C-alpha cells in the first residue's frame, strides 16, 4: 500500500476520534444552553461527565495538527494560509471553551457572577468552534479553496462563507450536540436519573434530526458549491454515504427504543462513516483540485518512522486510555478503583 495513503488513514482515524470524543465535549457545551428547568442539575451533570476526560479528548486535536505538519507539511502550510481566519476563530473558541470550563468548574461558588459569565463563555465557544471547523472542512471539500494555480489566499473568504460551508458548519454544531446528548443518556441512566435521561433522549433525537436535515441540504447544495465532492459522493463514495445515512436512522431507532448503549455505539459508527465518506469522496486529493495526497506528503522513509512510532505509542496509550475510561465511564470495576461514596460528585475534583 502507498505509504502516504496509510498516513492519511491514520490522520483520518484521529479526526474521527477527535470528532466523537472532543466533538461531544463541544456538544455538551451547546446542550448547556438548552437546560430549561433544572439548569443547575444539568450543569453539574455536564461538569461531572466532562471533568476527567476533556483534556485527554482534546489531545486528539493536537495529535491531528502535529500529525498533519509532520506527515503532510505542504498540505498543512497551504491549509494554514487558506484557512487563516476560520482556523484562528476556531482556535479562539477552543481556548475560551477549555479555559471557561475549568474556571467555572473550580469557582468556589458556582452561583457567582464569575461562574455564570464563564459558563456563558463556555456555551458560546462550544457553538463557535464546531461551526468554524465544519465550515473549514466544507471549504476544503468545496474544491474552491485554492486559486487555479494552487496558491492559497487568506483574503479569499468565500470558500468558508459560502451557503454550503455555512450549512456544513451548522451541521457540525448539530452533530456534536447529537453525540453529546446520546452519551449523556447513557450517563444519566447509569446515574439512575430518569428525568435527565429522558430529557437527553429527546435532545438527542432533535439534534440528530437537525443533523440529518442539514446534511441533506448540504448534499443538495454541493452540485453548485462543491461539484467535486458531489461527484465523489455519488461515485466511489456512494456505499459509505448510504451506510452512514442508514446508521443515522439506526441511531434514532435505538434511541426511540431506549437502547442507550447501543445507540451510543451506533452514533459513533455513523459519525465515523460520515467522515470517511467525505475523505473517500475527495481522494486522491488532500485539498482538491490542486493538491493530491502524494504531492503533499513527506518523504516515505519519514512517514515510515512516524507510523512505526505511532504504533509503539499506541501500545502504551490505548491501555492507559482504557484505564481512564474504565475508572470514570464504565460500569464495571477496574484495578485500583474503589466504590464512590454517594452524593460527592463535585468532590471528585476538590
Amino acid at each position, binding site marked *: 500500500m502507498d505509504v502516504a495513503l496509510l498516513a492519511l488513514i491514520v490522520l483520518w482515524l484521529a479526526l474521527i476520534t477527535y470528532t466523537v470524543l472532543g466533538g461531544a465535549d463541544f456538544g455538551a457545551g451547546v446542550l448547556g444552553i438548552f437546560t430549561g428547568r433544572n439548569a443547575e442539575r444539568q450543569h453539574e451533570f455536564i461538569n461531572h461527565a466532562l471533568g*476527567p476526560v476533556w483534556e485527554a479528548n482534546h489531545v486528539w486535536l493536537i495529535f491531528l495538527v502535529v500529525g498533519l505538519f509532520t506527515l503532510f507539511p505542504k498540505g498543512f502550510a497551504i491549509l494554514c494560509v487558506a484557512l487563516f481566519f476560520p482556523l484562528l476563530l476556531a*482556535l479562539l473558541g477552543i481556548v475560551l471553551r477549555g479555559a471557561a470550563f475549568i474556571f467555572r468548574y473550580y469557582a468556589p461558588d458556582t452561583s457567582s457572577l464569575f461562574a455564570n459569565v464563564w459558563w456563558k463563555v463556555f456555551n458560546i465557544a462550544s457553538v463557535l468552534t464546531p461551526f468554524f471547523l465544519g465550515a473549514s472542512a466544507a471549504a476544503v471539500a468545496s474544491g474552491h479553496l485554492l486559486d487555479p494555480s494552487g496558491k492559497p489566499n487568506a483574503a479569499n473568504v468565500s470558500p468558508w462563507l459560502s451557503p454550503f460551508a455555512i450549512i456544513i458548519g451548522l451541521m457540525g454544531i448539530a452533530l456534536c450536540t447529537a453525540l453529546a446528548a446520546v452519551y449523556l443518556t447513557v450517563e444519566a441512566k447509569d446515574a439512575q436519573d430518569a428525568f435527565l435521561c429522558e430529557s437527553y433522549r429527546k435532545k438527542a433525537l432533535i439534534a440528530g434530526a437537525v443533523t440529518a436535515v442539514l446534511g441533506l441540504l448540504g448534499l443538495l447544495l454541493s452540485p453548485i458549491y462543491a461539484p467535486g465532492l458531489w461527484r465523489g459522493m455519488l461515485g466511489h463514495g456512494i456505499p459509505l454515504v448510504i451506510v452512514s445515512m442508514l446508521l443515522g436512522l439506526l441511531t434514532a431507532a435505538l434511541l426511540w427504543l431506549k437502547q442507550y448503549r447501543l445507540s451510543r455505539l451506533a452514533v459513533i459508527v455513523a459519525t465515523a462513516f460520515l467522515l470517511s465518506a467525505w475523505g473517500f469522496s475527495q481522494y486522491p486529493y488532500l485539498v482538491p483540485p490542486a493538491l493530491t495526497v502524494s504531492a503533499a506528503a513527506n518523504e516515505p522513509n519519514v512517514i515510515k518512522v512516524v507510523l512505526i512510532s505511532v504504533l509503539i505509542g499506541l501500545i502504551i496509550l490505548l491501555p492507559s486510555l482504557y484505564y481512564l475510561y474504565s475508572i470514570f465511564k464504565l460500569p464495571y470495576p477496574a484495578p*485500583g478503583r474503589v466504590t464512590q461514596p454517594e452524593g460527592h460528585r463535585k*468532590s471528585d475534583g*476538590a
Partner: protein
Amino acid sequence: MSDLLAARAQMGTSLAFHIIFSALGVGLPLLFCIAEGLALKTKNRDWMLLTRRWSKGAAILFAIGAVSGTILSFELGLLWPTFMDFGGGVIGYPFMLEGFAFFLEAIFLGLYLYGWNRLSPRAHWLCSFPVWISALVSAWFVVSANAWMNTPTGFVLKNGRPVDIDPIQAMLNPSTPYETIHMMLACYVATGFAVAAVYAWGILRGKRDNYHRKGLMIGMLMAVIATPLQIISGDFNARFLSDAQPTKFAAMEAVFHSGNGLPITIGGLVDPDNRTVHYGIELPKLLSVLAKGDPNAPLKGLDQFAPSDWPNIPLVHLSFDVMVGCGFFGLLVAAVFWISTAIKRRIPLNRVLLWGVVIAGPLAFLAIETGWMVTELGRQPWTIVGFLRTADAATPAPWVTISFLVFSLVYILLAVALIGLLLWVARSPMPQVGMPGQEQPVEKAGV
C-alpha cells in the same frame, strides 16, 4: 505595526504565556508525587493537605497550559506557514512524540485530579508517576525541536527543499542536550521557588503552622537541588554557544570586537551603532576563561558577521544579564536558607530571608522568560539558522495585527481570571477538610 512584527509579537506573547504553565506542568507533578508519597508513608495530615491543595491549583493551571499549548501548535502553521512547509517534515517527529507524551500526561492527570474518591490511595499515588515522567519527556521533545531551529541537521538541501530527511538525527541535533537539560532544570527551579514563595508569604502573614513550614521546605528543597545544577548547565550552554552560535553568544555578552583574552561585560547600555557598551561593568579576561577555560583564548565578536545577520543586541544582552542575575539571586537565597536550617536545625523564619524567598518565586519565572528571549531573539534574523529567515517564514495573510490584538486581549482576560480564581480558591477555607474524600486517603494510608 507591520504584519511581520505582529506575527512575531503574537508568537512571542503566546510562548511567554504558555511557558509559565509548562514549567509548572513539569515541576508540580513531581512535587505532589513526593508529597503524597510522604503522606502515605508518614500518615501526616499536612502532607496530604498540601497534595490536595496543589492538585486543585494544578487542575486549573494545567487546563490553561493545555489550551495555550494548542494555540502554539496552530500558530506554528498559521503564523509561519513557510517554516512549517520547510521544517514540518524534518522536525515534526519530536512534536508527534511530544503529542504522545502529553497524551499520557493528560490521561493520568485526569485520573489523578478527578480520581481522589475513585481510586485506592496507592493507585492514586501511582498515577502521579506517569504524569511527572511524561511531562518531563514532553519538555525534552518540544525543546529538541527548538534546538533544531538553532542547529539544523538531519537533511540535505536540494533546490531549496530539505531532502534525504532523517527525523531522528534532526531531533538529536547538536543543541538538543544543552537546551533540553537547561529547560528541564528551569522547570524545577521555577516550581520550587514558586511553591516556596507561596508558603513564605503565608508565614510572613503570621501563619507559622506546620502546614506552611512543610510547604516552604519542600519548595526550597526542590530549588536547592535544581538551582546549582542549572547554573552548571548554563555554563555548558554558554561554552557550546561560543562555538555553535557565535552571533548569539556575542550578542548575549555584547562582544562587538573579536580578540584574545576578552572581558565579561555585565549590564551597561549597549550601543550597536557605535559598537560599544556604555557604563557596563567589565571583568577582565573572564569571558575567555568562561567560554574556553583559558584567560587568553580568542573569541569571535560581532565584527565577524554582517550586521544584517545580527540579532537585536541590546535586548539579547539585557535578557541574558537578567536571567543570570535571577539565577544567582535564587542560588543565594537557597544557600542561605539551607545553611541557616542546618545551623538552627529548624526551618528559618527570619523575615528578610522569607522576603528573599517571596521575591525569588517571580524572579525564577522572569529567568525562564528572559532565558527564552535570549534563545529566540538571539536566533534572529533566522527562523531556521542558515536556511530560512524569519521575514520569509511569516504568513502572507492580511490583518495579522488584528489577530495579535485579539489574542493579546484573550491572554490578558485569561490571566486576570486565572489569578483571581487562584486567589479565591486559596482564600476559601480549605473546603476539602472534613469531607470523606479528604479523610479517607489519610486513614487508609499504607494499605
